[in-house]
């Protein structure tokens, strides 16, 4: 059975061009780039070229790029490194919808006595700028860490604007953004829109290079201490022998993304929009999470009322379709996704979320297959549901009552934080 892979916000297929670029460094160019003999020049030059290429892509200086093992390491390095550099500041601003690689670090810091503001989002997943402004403390705030795009919903935060407001409030505030979901999908310009950003994390395996490599942009002069202590690699800012083949792969992947961006972007957006429109038309009581907010072109997150996500994923998987869900049964915790809860998605739908994330390899035929398959899967589960009448294609009276309660609860939740 052919696989229809629509889980590209989780990880991506490695591009054949990336594999090609990596192979020499997995075969005979195995030398340690720090070594002195001539043979090591190849790998050393490859790392330097990769660094320059990525810097060119992000419009920054090569020495402002650190290679890491993953975006989680980049995020830890940014946050822990920043707090180590300036012990006099002990306040951090972040959001409730960050990836765990930021959220858990911030919760850990709360235990260590730091003050952290976890900003709420509205019903469409957007930050309220007022709340951001309110949270900033001139002279005290050490770090703002706000993701560029949300991995679950694709909702984009205006990080350029937020960074400018933070810097105008107090130039001493460092601004970090986790750009794992935007690197390779959107042009990132650290001289233009993102010129006030000091730290930016990205990951290779979200943009068609392999797992096990990431990068951190660290603006020259930004006070950040090393996190992974060890050798003199990366200018003493990150110990550990350079992962040469993967670094080469990451650079090649970004290069490819840049080269094909214009055409991919339009094609992917059209496919996503078609999927969204057709699912909305064919499945009653389906909500699009993040509708109305600026979103990544490749991401569609829907919540189906009165259906549990795992049963849908399981049947999709049986037909070769790979997607993901924020339902409790798939999260590893018994709680549904923290992102969807922060958006106050009604409880009748929060267990029935599905995320489809597309890539440049997604075809129109694959999207049609989902459009044909999912409505039938939803109907099969709703037939079993105590809250749904599939004959009438509507909730039963008890489901209707719960829906009213859920919508009212959502209204109150959002009003409370607004």
């Amino acid at each position: 059975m052919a696989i229809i892979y629509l889980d590209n916000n989780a990880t991506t297929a490695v591009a054949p061009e990336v594999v090609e670029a990596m192979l020499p460094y997995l075969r005979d160019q195995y030398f340690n780039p720090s070594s002195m003999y001539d043979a090591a020049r190849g790998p050393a030059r490859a790392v330097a070229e990769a660094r320059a290429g990525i810097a060119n892509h992000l419009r920054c200086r090569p020495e402002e790029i650190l290679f890491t093992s993953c975006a989680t390491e980049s995020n830890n390095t940014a946050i822990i490194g920043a707090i180590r550099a300036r012990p006099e500041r002990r306040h951090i601003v972040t959001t409730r919808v960050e990836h765990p690689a930021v959220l858990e670090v911030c919760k850990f810091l709360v235990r260590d006595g730091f003050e952290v503001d976890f900003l709420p989002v509205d019903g469409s997943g957007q930050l309220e700028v007022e709340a951001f402004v309110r949270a900033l403390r001139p002279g005290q705030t050490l770090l703002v860490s706000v993701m560029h795009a949300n991995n679950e919903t694709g909702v984009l935060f205006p990080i350029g604007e937020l960074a400018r407001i933070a810097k105008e409030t107090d130039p001493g505030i460092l601004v970090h953004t986790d750009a794992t979901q935007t690197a390779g999908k959107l042009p990132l310009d650290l001289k233009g829109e993102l010129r006030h950003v000091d730290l930016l994390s990205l990951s290779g395996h979200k943009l068609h290079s392999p797992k096990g490599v990431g990068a951190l942009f660290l603006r020259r002069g930004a006070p950040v201490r090393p996190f992974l202590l060890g050798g003199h690699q990366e200018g003493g800012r990150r110990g550990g022998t350079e992962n040469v083949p993967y670094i080469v792969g990451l650079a090649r992947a970004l290069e490819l993304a840049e080269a094909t961006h214009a055409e991919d972007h339009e094609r992917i957006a059209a496919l996503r929009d078609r999927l969204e429109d057709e699912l909305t038309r064919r499945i009653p009581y389906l909500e699009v999470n993040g509708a109305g907010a600026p979103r990544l072109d490749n991401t569609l997150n829907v919540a189906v009322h009165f259906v549990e996500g795992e049963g849908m994923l399981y049947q999709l998987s049986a037909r070769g379709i790979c997607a993901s869900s924020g339902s409790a049964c798939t999260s590893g915790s018994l709680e549904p996704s923290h992102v969807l809860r922060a958006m106050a998605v009604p409880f009748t739908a929060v267990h029935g979320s599905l995320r489809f994330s597309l890539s440049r390899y997604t075809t129109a035929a694959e999207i049609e297959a989902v459009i044909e398959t999912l409505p039938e899967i939803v109907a099969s589960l709703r037939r079993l549901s105590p809250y749904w009448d599939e004959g009438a294609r509507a909730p039963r009276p008890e489901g209707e009552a719960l829906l009213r309660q859920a919508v009212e609860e959502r209204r109150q939740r959002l009003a409370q934080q607004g």
Partner: protein
Amino acid sequence: MTWNYSEKTTKLFMDAVQGRPGTHMGEIANPDGIGEHGSLACGDALRFTFRVERHPSDPTQDIIVEARYLTFGCTSAIAASEALCAIIEERRLTPIQALSITNKDIVEYLEGLPEQKIHCSVMGAEALQAAVFNWAQRRGVDLRALGVDITPEEREEGRVVCTCFGLTEPYLRRKIMELNLRSIADITNALKAGGACMSCHHKPGGLQDLLDDIWGRQPTEFKTEVELPVARLISRARSEDGLSPYQFAKKVERVLDEYVRPMLAQDGGDLEVVDIKDTLVYCRLKGACAGCVGANQTIKFMVEQVLKDRVDQRCRVIAV
């Protein structure tokens, strides 16, 4: 987290969603017993109904001949519901005999369940108990007199230990002993308790305390969880000329009303003060000025200059 369901579980699920003959999806009209467990908000819910062949004189000799379910939940919740109905119909039991069916029987019928999914089998057993209780009421059977002790309503009574799933101390105590749960992970897998915010794990009277009380104290891993702090308001220092933050804000508004807003109004625009911290004034242009290309420049230079001249030299304006 990929699926490691048994073939049996998978088959029961796929048969059910495809509505194959021999599956038990549905609801019996005018049932002899009905029981529910779980809720939509908690992520799984089961409505279980059965019909009996009535004994002419002795209701305790009724035999369950048909069982049906409606389930909202994951793959294993649906498979466990199928298993429950299949076991009952196969065995031809009286409702009281049916009470001997435990979650272990359901797990066995499914040829195993992943640990984190054990609660799906518990849900089946609980719904069955509730249905038998309901049958006894309908048929005028005094279960207590027969030495059968089921009290489904204890779920609702007593101190709530796990607030996420609304589970009470008496319920948790009974289930911990009944299912021989020895650790917090066991409790979470079987009952979901403690599986969401986790704040009940180690607080006084929490899950670990219940375990220690029931089984005796055992060495445990130390763990605390942090709750998100509520966003704090910032205290503002007094400005240069000794104005309090309130007076300062009033003065800013007065000056804006007098010197800035009339100018903007000529172009159909307006200005909103979003926040003030010390002498930082956060402003947003509204109306016709909101979409203007020069909007931020207007704020930065025109508004800032007015405030510098008329409120406080240190005033800085930030566009938001």
